């Protein structure tokens, strides 16, 4: 969930898919507005590492791209450069 703003008492307002709620930040230090956090039973339990998320997604994209080319070749389609 994305942190919208920090509130007093180690809390924050967070948002996901248009749904907002207030969560406790007691378990995670140094959270800032704009960060992504993973929330469980009303507590942020860790910050979501956006760089790592992008790396994982890039790996998926690579596999898909590689495979698409293979599939095209197999089905006899021409590959346009």
């Amino acid at each position, binding site marked *: 969930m994305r942190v919208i703003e920090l509130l007093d008492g180690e809390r924050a307002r967070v948002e996901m898919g248009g749904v907002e709620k207030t969560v406790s930040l007691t378990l995670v230090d140094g959270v800032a507005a704009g960060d992504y956090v993973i929330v469980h039973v009303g507590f942020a339990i860790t910050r979501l*590492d956006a760089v790592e998320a992008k790396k994982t997604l890039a790996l*998926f994209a690579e596999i898909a791209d590689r495979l698409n080319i293979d599939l095209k070749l197999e089905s006899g389609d021409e590959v346009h450069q």
Partner: protein
Amino acid sequence: MKYISEFRDRRAAQALSAVLATEANPAREYHLMEFCGGHTHAIFRYGVQDLLPPNVRLVHGPGCPVCVLPVSRLDLAIELAERHDVILCSYGDMLRVPGSRKRSLLKSRALGRDVRMVDSCTEALTIARAHPDKEIVFFAIGFETTTPPTAVAIREADRLGLANFSVYCNHVLTPSAIRSILDADDVRRLGLVRVDGFIGPSHVSTIIGSRPYEHFAREYRRPVVIAGFEPLDVLQAVRMLVRQLNEGRAEVENQFTRGVTREGNVKAQALVAEVFELRRLFEWRGLGPVPYSGLRIKKKYAAFDAETRFALVEKPVPENKACECGAIIRGVKKPTDCKIFGTACTPSNPIGSCMVSPEGACSAYYRYRRQLLDRRPAAEPATATG
């Protein structure tokens, strides 16, 4: 939904599935246990098993917190709720789990007892402050992810000097449960369950880190891959496990690098260590008593321990004979092996705990696979609880 919907992309799922099909060795079988109920739910909801080669099988483990709590422990919560001076606060799913003699917390509430559903233990603190004349008991269940919030609540109650708040602690530990599965006769001696590798839990691991799995990956020679909860995460974790098994490796790998580090959440770990200590033995539904697998509140915070405050004593309870939850939790049986699955036992009328939580194997089967697996007429349509 950023960082969520991308991990559900159909095209990428097909690509991963195709790659897996080329990498899995058709001459062997791969039996992979997903430990966590969150994975069980995702696997059924997105039909992950259908994307795997037929020789890669997912075995569902005991990672649904509601499912593994023994009836005798639930009975004590129901007993507490019977007291007129008590307001019992609990996470939602627990309310519907059948206790002994057809009781449940939901029924207690219907009979006029003060049982409240909370989304967070901090709500229980708020209730305690609003009702100084009542005893507020928080019925704490769950794995390492839910434990730190409970620790925070106890510390907060201590700080505020809340004399009317206590916790009925049923928190359990993941690594000891995995070990107990591998030590069980079903796996070791009888060979009833085959587990070649584990899909490690994501949220639990954000707290404990990936390190606690290293010891048993080595000792039991089983690979562990910690995976996120989205379907692509699970698929990729399966692929990583297949690769390890092909190469004869048994290591801990982390697919969920966006949330899990080797060390985990050190702050949360310190809080848990401050408030809780290990119980020598804790009973699990399906697994029986597992050494050092449960937590209790330390002496220092004994004032907040509902077990001491109300002198709770467990009484042994026979399980419902028809219910196969125990065997299902161990991975020995499938929900469809149960004679009353989908007939007498449905999500709207659960007989066993595995049918209650959306993370339970019976509930997941009922919602997402019933049409494919079973032609028996269903008693009634599934209701959405999750």
